[in-house]
C-alpha cells in the first residue's frame, strides 16, 4: 500500500479584525479543542505538534516557549516553524512519512491586532544594510511588483480592482470572514493611493484568528475519519531575498513550489485537474500573478479569466471562494491555515452557503508577503 497522509480534523475560531476578549492562549485553545474533537482524538494520543509562528509577530524573543500549553503539547515532541502554516504542514507530512509518527497536530494563529505598528514590523524584515535605510513603506515593494506585472502581462488596474470586488463579495457568504463587502471597482480605484498603482483597498487588511489541523497516516486516518482529506501534493520554495536580483513580473517562488507539488501529485494539466483554488491575494494583483505562476492559465490570461467569470463562485475554476485574504483578512503565518481550512470544508461538503458542488481536488497557495519571495503549495483531495 502506498503511504498517504490525510487531514482528519480541523478547528478554527473564525477571523475578526480584533479579538480583545481573549488572550492568544485562549484563542488557540478554542481552535485546538475543536480540531481534536473533530478528529476524535485527544492531544495525549497525538504523536507530534507544530506551531507556525514568527517571533516579532508574537512580540516574544523566543515565541516557541509559549506554544505547548494551549495545544495540549506539554512534554510532547513539539517544534515551531517560523513560516507559513503550509510549510508547517509539509514538515508534519514528512514527520508522518518517516514512519516515526502516526499523527501530528499543526497550529497557526494571528494576533496581528496586538502589533501596534505593523508597517514598521514589515519594514524590519528588509535587508538592514541595503534596503532599510531607504525607509520605504513595505507596500512599495508590492507597488513595484504590480507595475512590472501589469506591464509584462497587459493587465489593467481595473482588472486588479475586480479581484477585490469578487473576493470581498465571496466573503459575504463566509461566516468566518471579517471583511466581506459589496463594493464596486471604482471604490477600489478611488481609495487612498498607497504606493501606486496600489490603492488602499488593493491591500488585504489584517485579522486575528487561529486554526489547528490534525494529520494522520493512511491507516490511522481511515480508522479516525469518514471523510479524510488526503494530501496529494506539497511544494515550497524560496527565491532570492535580495530585492535587486528578483524577477519582478513573475512569481517564480510560486511557479517552482507548484511544479514540485504537481509532480508529487502526478498532475500534468493543472488547469484541467484542479477543481478550485485558494491562492494568495494579499495584494489584489497577486491573485492574478499567482494564477499564472500556478499554471491555472497562461501568462496574461488571468485578468481575462476573471472578467469572464470563470474564477467566480459559480465559474469553471472558482478562485478564493472563501473571500481570500482581501475578504477574510490577512492572517500572516495563519494565511495557509485559513486556505487549508477552506479546502477541507469544501472537499468534505461542509462549506454551507459557499459550497461548490462536486469538487474533488483543491489547491492552496501562500506567499509570505513583502519583502519575501517564499511560497508554498498544497494539493488536497477527498478521493
Amino acid at each position, binding site marked *: 500500500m502506498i503511504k498517504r497522509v490525510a487531514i482528519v480534523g480541523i478547528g478554527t475560531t473564525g477571523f475578526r479584525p480584533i*479579538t*480583545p*476578549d*481573549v*488572550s*492568544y*492562549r*485562549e*484563542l488557540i*485553545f478554542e481552535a*485546538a*479543542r475543536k480540531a*481534536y474533537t473533530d478528529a476524535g482524538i*485527544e*492531544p*495525549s494520543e497525538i504523536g507530534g505538534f507544530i506551531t507556525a509562528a514568527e517571533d*516579532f509577530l508574537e*512580540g516574544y524573543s523566543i515565541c516557541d516557549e509559549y506554544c*505547548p*500549553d*494551549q495545544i*495540549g503539547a*506539554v512534554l510532547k515532541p513539539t517544534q515551531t516553524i517560523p513560516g507559513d502554516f503550509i510549510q508547517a504542514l509539509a514538515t508534519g507530512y514528512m514527520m508522518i512519512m518517516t514512519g516515526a509518527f502516526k499523527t501530528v497536530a499543526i497550529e497557526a494563529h494571528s*494576533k496581528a*491586532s*496586538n*502589533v*501596534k*505598528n505593523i508597517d*514598521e*514590523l514589515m519594514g*524590519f524584515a528588509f535587508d*538592514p*544594510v541595503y534596503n*532599510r*535605510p531607504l525607509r520605504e513603506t513595505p507596500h512599495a515593494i508590492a507597488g513595484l511588483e504590480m507595475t512590472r506585472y501589469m506591464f509584462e502581462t497587459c493587465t489593467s488596474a481595473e482588472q486588479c480592482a475586480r479581484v477585490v470586488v469578487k473576493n470581498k463579495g465571496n466573503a459575504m457568504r463566509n461566516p468566518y470572514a471579517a471583511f466581506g463587502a459589496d463594493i464596486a471597482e471604482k471604490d477600489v480605484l478611488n481609495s487612498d493611493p498607497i504606493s501606486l498603482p496600489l490603492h488602499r483597498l488593493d491591500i488585504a487588511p489584517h485579522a486575528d484568528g487561529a486554526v489547528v489541523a490534525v494529520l494522520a497516516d493512511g491507516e490511522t486516518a481511515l480508522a479516525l475519519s469518514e471523510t479524510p482529506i488526503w494530501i496529494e501534493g506539497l511544494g515550497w520554495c524560496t527565491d532570492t531575498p535580495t530585492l535587486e536580483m528578483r524577477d519582478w513580473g513573475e512569481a517564480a517562488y510560486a511557479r517552482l513550489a507548484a511544479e514540485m507539488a504537481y509532480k508529487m501529485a502526478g498532475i500534468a494539466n493543472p488547469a484541467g485537474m484542479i477543481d478550485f483554488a485558494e491562492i494568495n491575494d494579499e495584494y489584489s494583483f497577486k491573485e492574478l500573478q499567482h494564477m499564472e505562476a500556478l499554471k491555472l492559465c497562461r501568462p496574461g490570461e488571468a485578468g481575462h479569466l476573471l472578467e469572464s467569470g470563470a474564477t467566480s463562485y459559480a465559474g469553471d475554476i472558482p478562485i478564493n471562494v472563501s473571500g481570500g485574504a482581501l475578504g477574510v483578512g490577512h492572517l500572516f503565518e495563519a494565511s495557509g491555515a485559513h486556505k487549508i481550512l477552506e479546502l477541507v470544508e469544501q472537499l468534505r461538503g461542509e462549506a454551507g452557503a459557499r459550497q461548490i458542488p462536486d469538487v474533488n481536488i483543491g489547491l492552496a497557495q501562500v506567499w509570505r508577503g513583502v519583502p519575501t519571495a517564499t511560497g508554498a503549495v498544497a494539493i488536497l483531495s477527498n478521493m
Partner: protein
Amino acid sequence: MELEKYKLGGTHLKSSDFEKGKVLTTAWQPNLAYTWDNGVAIGRYLDELKNGRIIARVCHECHRIMLPPRMFCELCFRPTDEWMYVQDTGVVSTFSVARVNWDASRRGPKEPPLLPAVIEIDGATKGMGILHMLGEVDPDDIKAGMKVRAVWKKSEDRTGAITDILYFKPLRAAASKKAPARRKR
C-alpha cells in the same frame, strides 16, 4: 575530514576596529509596539491584583489550583471550572542574588542586588510558583523553604499589574541560628 585541515571562516573584529572606523556599521532602532490582549484569565488575575488579592483557577479533573490562572487546563485539555482566591503568602522555592540588570549592565556599587525568586503561593497546588522579587531581607539570610508574604503597593497606586506587589518579605525575622558558613553572595 579533520577540521584542522580546513581554513575556517569567521573573522574576529576587535573593539578598536570599530573605534578607529575600520569597520562601518549600520544602526537601526526598531520601533515596535504591542498591546497584548490579556484575555479572560490574566485579565481577572490583574483585576484582582489591583484589589490586593491573588486569584487562581481550579480544574475539577486533575484538581489542581493553578497560578497564574488559565481558562483551560493544559494537562487535561479541557476548560477549567472555577475561580479561587489564594493567600498572599508563600514559600521560596529558589532564589538568586542578581548584580546585573536586564540588559547585562552591572548594578552600581551603591545599588542593592536584585533578589528574584520563585515563590510557591499558599493555597495553590504545591509546586505552583510565580516569579517575583524578595525584599526587606539580607541576601545572606535568604533560604529555600523560607515563608514570605507579599508587600503590596498602596491601593491608590495599584494599576492592575504584577508590580502591584512590590516584593515578598520574610514572614518573620530570619532564624537566629546561623546557617553553615558559605561564601558571601
